[in-house]
């Protein structure tokens, strides 16, 4: 992790995210809270020409807004990464390599499976780390607090088994 600049401390990151979300929530700005995961089926549905299906109708409004937001996210992250000199094309993250090794096929396979499960779960629950945990958590919504608890438990249990180091490796 050869970073040129120090990262923004976690406390500041958390506070800035909460301020940004409250600004977005303002009736004079977006009058809604940050959400991300509806953009995935929305984008797929647009590409596949499924706009008249029940689910696409259901997420039509949030899907489009989130798609705009995510276009900004990629652009903002890219600019920030260039300024911070973090931009680097790479496939295998350091911590993955430490446990799982150099295999490209392995990383590609699990990244795809992981992404598939991630969005399947998000759509079943109606939100993800952004819409449920961050925005729903801020509203002390029951659905979001339950989602957050399930997510953290499942993440840590999966991590414990999936990233277990082989003793003789």
């Amino acid at each position: 992790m050869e970073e040129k600049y120090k990262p923004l401390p976690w406390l500041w990151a958390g506070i800035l995210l909460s301020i940004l979300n409250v600004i977005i929530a303002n009736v004079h700005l977006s009058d809604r809270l940050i959400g991300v995961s509806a953009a995935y089926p929305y984008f797929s549905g647009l590409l596949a020409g499924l706009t008249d299906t029940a689910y696409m109708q259901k997420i039509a409004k949030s899907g489009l807004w989130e798609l705009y937001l995510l276009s900004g996210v990629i652009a903002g992250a890219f600019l920030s990464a260039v300024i911070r000199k973090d931009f680097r094309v790479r496939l295998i993250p350091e911590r993955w390599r430490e446990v799982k090794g150099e295999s490209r096929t392995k990383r590609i396979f699990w990244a795809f499976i992981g992404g598939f499960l991630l969005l399947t779960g998000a759509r079943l629950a109606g939100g993800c780390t952004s819409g449920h945990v961050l925005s729903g958590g801020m509203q002390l919504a029951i659905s979001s607090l339950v989602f957050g608890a399930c997510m953290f438990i499942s993440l840590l249990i999966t991590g414990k088994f999936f990233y277990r180091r082989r003793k003789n490796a």
Partner: protein
Amino acid sequence: MLKTIILGMFFGAILQNSRVNTFNKIGGFAMMKDFTAAKVLLTAVGAGSILLFIEIQLGAASLSIKPFDVTGVIAGGLIFGVGMAVLGYCPGTLLVSIGEGAVDAVIGTAGGLLAGLVYIVLYPQIEHILGPNLGKVNLYTHSAAGTALVVLLLGALFIGAAFYLDKKEKNIV
């Protein structure tokens, strides 16, 4: 549209600057080696719950609670956690990581887009098993003073939990 894109740029830049978008932080949390992701989320939820309550009291924002579909939320949360551990990103941080050149995040996004397509197609069959729907409920009480107390207590609890994890983390590394 332009307004939303600009807001998204701030969202992406904050996440990128904190490095919480990276596999090393999120996968690292699944490995229990790095608590940054949990600390950032707990702080944002804690501070945000207090700020949002004030904003709502001022009449400048309203709640938009997601319905509690019991099966969907619990099953979804559990499946989501498995995906997040294996992939090492969540739906928002995937896009932040693409922005800084992570090719595995591009592949994860492709997996997510396929899942979105499958969900659209299967939704008519899935819709009725997501419930029972317990409604759009949160922990606000009927009085503003009661809610203020709940918000302050839970807000402090979430932020306190972040500091606790920060202390624990220093003993691991």
